[in-house]
């Protein structure tokens, strides 16, 4: 039993990371009905930019963090929306999705050539102590990630449901045409979504990198698991990312423990197929209207 709890807690800790990365998928999906295949790289890059700023300017950590984060939000929040999404969105989602694939190559190779091909340590804002819960070990870093994941998703839910700005954003996501008629500044709302997406990627990056290290190729693994999490949880709901992330984390941990380490990756994927066949919109997802 203690063993089971240990696996469960490890799964929740990992799942919170996937959840944090998966929010971005749901945000981009809601506003542009497309899949950002560079989402994993979005989570990889901020940490690299922070380290790069520290290295280039010899800046202290806080300043480096500030420069790196500001640069990232500017380029991959505002810039990404204006230069990639805007010109392409009217031509359907597929070319845009492919363009994000190309973007992911650029980000990955850029991080490798511009910074380092090797993994680097990333300073943690949380002490790396370990505490015992029900006989299982969990680090403060993981606890912080779990707390932040819940807090961020709670805050987003509150923002979307409880504030004027948030409701405008939600209306834009659901039906831009109607939103425009209602006098909502649709363009600004979409931009806001992309900025929030970039800011969340920064949060995820800063929290994850002390544990996973900062490396150009990290986006591949995180991106894949976050993608699976978003599908399982439901692409069109922010809270779907949380539920999906936790489920995928736990399932992955249990698969490694009780099924097979060689086929560990298969288990979350089988889960994904089952969810799609039984509830295609995801566990938390809203059914999307079907045009007849």
């Amino acid at each position: 039993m203690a063993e089971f709890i240990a696996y469960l807690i490890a799964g929740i800790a990992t799942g919170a990371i996937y959840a944090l990365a998966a929010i971005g998928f749901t945000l981009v999906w809601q506003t542009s009905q497309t899949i950002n295949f560079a989402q994993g790289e979005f989570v990889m890059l901020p940490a690299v930019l922070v380290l790069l700023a520290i290295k280039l300017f010899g800046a202290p950590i806080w300043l480096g963090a500030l420069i790196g984060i500001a640069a990232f939000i500017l380029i991959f929040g505002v810039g990404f929306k204006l230069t990639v999404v805007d010109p392409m969105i009217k031509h359907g989602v597929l070319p845009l999705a492919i363009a994000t694939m190309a973007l992911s190559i650029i980000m990955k190779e850029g991080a490798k050539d511009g910074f380092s091909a090797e993994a680097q340590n990333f300073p943690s804002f949380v002490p790396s102590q370990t505490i015992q819960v029900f006989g299982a070990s969990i680090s403060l870093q993981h606890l912080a990630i779990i707390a932040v994941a819940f807090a961020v998703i709670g805050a987003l839910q509150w923002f979307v449901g409880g504030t004027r700005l948030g409701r405008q954003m939600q209306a834009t996501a659901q039906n831009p045409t109607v939103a425009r008629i209602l006098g909502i500044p649709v363009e600004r709302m979409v931009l806001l979504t992309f900025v929030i997406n970039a800011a969340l990627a920064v949060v995820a990056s800063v929290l994850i990198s002390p544990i996973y290290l900062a490396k150009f190729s990290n986006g591949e693994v995180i991106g894949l698991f976050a993608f699976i999490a978003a599908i399982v949880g439901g692409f069109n709901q922010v809270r779907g990312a949380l539920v999906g992330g936790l489920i995928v984390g736990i399932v992955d941990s249990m698969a490694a423990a009780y099924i097979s380490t060689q086929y560990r990756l298969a288990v979350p994927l089988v889960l994904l197929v089952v969810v799609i066949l039984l509830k295609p919109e995801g566990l938390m997802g809203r059914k999307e209207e079907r045009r007849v």
Partner: protein
Amino acid sequence: MKRHWIIAAVLTAGLGLPALAQDKVKLVDVIELSGPGATSGTNWKSGVDLAVAEINAKGGILGKQIEIVHYDTQSNPGNTRAAVQRAIDEGTYAVLGPVFSGPIGASMQIAQRAEIAQIVGGEAAGLTKQGNQYLFRTSLSQTAAMPKIANYLKNTVKAGSVAVVWVNNDFGKGGRDAIIPELEKAGIKVAVDVATEQGQADFAADAIKIKNANADAVFVYLNEEESARFLRAAKQQGIAKPMIGETTLLGAKVIELAGEAANGVKGHVGLSIEAPIPAFQEFGKKFIAKFNYTPDHNGLKGYMAVYMVKWATEKQKKFDKKGVADTLRGATIKPSEEPGILMETTIEQNGDLDRESFLAEVINGKQVITSTLPKLKP
């Protein structure tokens, strides 16, 4: 239709350029610079660049400057094959790289057919068992290294049971397949056999599994950053058993990344800039000065590969491609003849190497060599 003519014309021009400057000797390095092998490949490439710069600064090989070209394989066998073919078409003197066994397997027949030496960084046992006369390693093969680990586990660690954790790629699987029979021979029980993914980020579940197996020691055979992540996860789960590894686990990068969690790690080291041989430490200093990071064993391998070519050329006193392979086969290179080889190295008939190696331990964030193991056939 017209477009097709143009395409064909451009293709012909772009792909068919003959290139070989007369006063230079061209060396092509075919290496993993992107994809999963990028870290190993970048180290290897830097090692090669360092050696080439040194040799050229001292007047080149037999008076000819080396012209070095790096082709990225994207860690993909098909691309590797293309790159090796291109290297040979362009008249490379020898082929350097790659490091991953899959891409080596896909490209070695090409060099063999062209009768050109291919000096690779692969450690998988199978590579040298195919009777290829033109393939040469730059490090001990897993078949040579693993018996030493098994001995170490039995005699020094005195482990009755071992948990094995390995990365499921050609490197990790090769090592795992090589150590299991050796452990059996030594009468050591394998308590648990854990495969992990290349690029895996989270090792909590694996660490818990190993903790619960309660073996006397843990044998860790992973790539650099995965090693570091695993060591951290193991520490977090409170695994107190000795962590035993082979070369990578005790490498500078792992120690840097794992921090405190690396202390107490022990094992066998093939190549190391911490080795108690001045030439190695000297290499480490030069490398860090030039590239601003600490090399792992792949940096050393790339460096040595170039010097193997230099030694063979100077030995045969001419630029004969086939001769490089013929000269290397069965040779013993001594640092007194060629300082760049760093330590005495015997090349066996099948391309395997035999040389001294080390037992080491990580103490206070530094790799400390505890003893030197002799060559297998001294």
